[in-house]
């Protein structure tokens, strides 16, 4: 990833100094001109609002009147005096810890089925990717709501087998579970990345392993998985971040409340409700910053753990 980022970086204009040919400076300027739409977006839509929200997190801001400085009050209240905050933290952790591994397992499983070149495999790859295209959309969340409702299609299907279903999305014991399934169903993006990773593994490796008497499972465990681990690592990092940021499905399926009984009150949903439902934008901003820092720490942990289980092919040559 780092490698890509460097390659995409602009020609370093300001650092070129006096000794550089004028042609290069021109090129640098051209570079910045071409980057300007992105830079405008970065500063105008990302960085400045972020800094403003940092300021707002130390204020009492009701969206309509001017923000009023309150120091660390929002943060203190969050950690000491808001049970719903801690509830949302727990719900989000549970959601991420279950949905990320499940989604990755499904993605890897399907990728293993689809990576050999059989007839029509392209069609299947596309078909399995479709749910991810629909993924973040409101429409699919509404479909889910209808499928998993008390009188929904899932229960209709279960009734055929004589099973009386629950009101899955309306029961606090199951509502989060349906969200996890929805997340896992959208396995397309990591699947495509796994497919690319699997294609990189030289066929000789498997031949050699087979000659040594390794069965399918042993091959998977000792050849596929280690060689795939950088790709797996990449997917874990991306999906962990995405998993913590889940919002649309929870928001739509719960009718914008995080219910039933706050069981789908993900951190982001609670943040939204505080900001736009309760006019507490200062508090919501503080929540956003706590979220950013927490997510940074979690991602750092995932990165550190990588040295324990990620195997890079070139390391073996040293």
């Amino acid at each position, binding site marked *: 990833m780092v490698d890509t980022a460097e390659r995409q970086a602009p020609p370093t204009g300001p650092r070129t100094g006096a000794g550089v040919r004028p042609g290069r400076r021109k090129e640098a300027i051209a570079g910045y001109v071409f980057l300007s739409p992105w830079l*405008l977006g970065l500063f105008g839509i990302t960085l400045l609002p972020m800094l403003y929200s940092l300021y707002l997190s130390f204020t009492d801001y009701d*969206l309509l*009147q001017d923000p009023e400085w309150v120091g660390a009050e929002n943060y203190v209240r969050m950690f000491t005096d808001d*049970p719903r905050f801690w509830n949302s933290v727990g719900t989000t952790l549970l959601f991420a810890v279950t949905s990320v591994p499940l989604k990755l397992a499904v993605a890897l499983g399907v990728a293993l089925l689809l990576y050999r070149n059989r007839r029509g495999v392209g069609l299947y790859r596309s078909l399995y990717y479709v749910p991810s295209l629909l993924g973040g959309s409101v429409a699919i969340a509404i479909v889910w709501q209808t499928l998993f409702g*008390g009188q929904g299609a899932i229960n209709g299907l279960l009734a055929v087998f004589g099973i009386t279903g629950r009101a899955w999305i309306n029961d*606090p014991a199951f509502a989060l579970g349906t969200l996890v399934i929805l997340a896992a169903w959208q396995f397309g993006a990591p699947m495509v990345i796994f497919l690319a990773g699997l294609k990189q593994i030289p066929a000789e490796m498997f031949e050699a392993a087979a000659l040594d008497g390794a069965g399918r499972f042993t091959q998977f465990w000792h050849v596929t998985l280690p060689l795939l681990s950088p790709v797996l690592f990449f997917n874990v990092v991306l999906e962990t971040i995405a998993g913590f940021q889940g919002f649309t499905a929870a928001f739509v399926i719960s*009718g914008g*409340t995080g*219910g039933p009984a706050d069981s789908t009150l993900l951190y982001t949903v609670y943040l939204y409700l505080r900001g736009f439902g309760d*006019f507490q934008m200062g508090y919501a901003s503080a929540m956003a910053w706590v979220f950013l820092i927490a997510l940074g720490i979690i991602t750092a942990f995932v990165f550190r753990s990588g040295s324990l289980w990620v195997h890079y092919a070139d390391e073996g040559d040293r």
Partner: protein
Amino acid sequence: MAILGSARTVRSLLASAAVLAVLATAACGGGGSRASDQQAGGPPEREQPVQLEVTWWGGPARAELTQKVLDLYTQKHPNVTFTTQWQGYSGYYDKVNTTAAGRNAADIIQIDNRVLREYSSKGLIADLTPWVGSTLKSDQIDERLMSTGEVDGKLYAVPLASNAQSYVVDKTVVEPLGLLPPETGWASWEEFGEWASKVTAATGRTVWGVRDESADLGGFEFWLRQQGKNLYDGQQLGFTEDDAARWLEMWAGFRQSGAASPAEVAQPANAGDISKNTVITKQTAVTFSWDNQYTEVSKATDHELVLVPLPGGPEGAYIRSSQFFTAYSRGENVATAVDVINFFVNDPEAGAILGTERGLPPNDQVREAVLPNFDDKLKYVVAYDERVTEKAGDTPPTPAQGDVQVRQLLITAAENSGFGRMTPRAAAAEFFSQATAELERAAS
């Protein structure tokens, strides 16, 4: 890349970048207000073109009627045109809040009393007092009803219609069982519970007697008023933790006896979405409904429905505005917006179009004028409403700031209790302490 070489491409790219930059600046500068040029109490604009945006919650039927009235206004005052925004109740206020935060809310905003105090104290909606008597006529409207739009003696919101609480009963289900409810309602909640459990037993649990209504703040308020209490006492809760516990325990008892549906049947309707009404879905014989919703609910089912007052004494009910129109304080032209609001409330032609979809017409003359043309269903609603409000208790003051949160907290408590995650008493304790904290916060 080859494109880099083409000067034309570079130029057109630069041009696009410039356009983008201009657009971005324009977007930031937009949404400004001309409200400051306007004089409070001034006359509506009759010459210059004015475009007003109107927003409300409701279904397609309401949208159609509202649009007709707006068209009629444009017909009479061609310089005024309208754009509209409407959606279901859940999420409606989030949208209003967001647009208001962007200084870009609609000129005329439909609200209910839940947010009235909040919106007025934050300056989102305009004080309409200066227009009363001139542009805005109030002399034909029941004073008790008009006062529900006031906060601290100033009029911020004009009642569009009045309605009353009711239990809507599925006659097609209960009549063959010989369990028609008493027309004047059940004498007590206990009697109601017994009646409902008989319905459940007689249908073999295919239809529950009543939806579990423990999450409904309106029903809770009704019940509290029967004990001589109110939801709010100023900016504090007007009831005790024990009251909340007894309310939740009563419903737990109803669920246990089979009178009330399990929580999982009740839960989908908790967010206030009328399409999830459990009488429409035929899961329960009874559910709470505002009486004005009778026509809409009736349309959605092939069963015959009747309206019955909530159980217990009639003092729980009060004259209530189902919804208000308010004017955005930074709107395009507040005076004209006020004139449009006045048109909705006081014009007989508008009244004839609106019927009772939002509730009963607030203007007595309009009501008398349009009543003979109403169809039987509308006449039934009017008769029910007049019967209930005749015996109604005093109208409580506008709810405290933070009412929206209290409403959500009661839903959570009812769900925690209903799904057996907490005892009713524990859920009530959590509800009470969190609601108290929210009200304190909202006031500070």
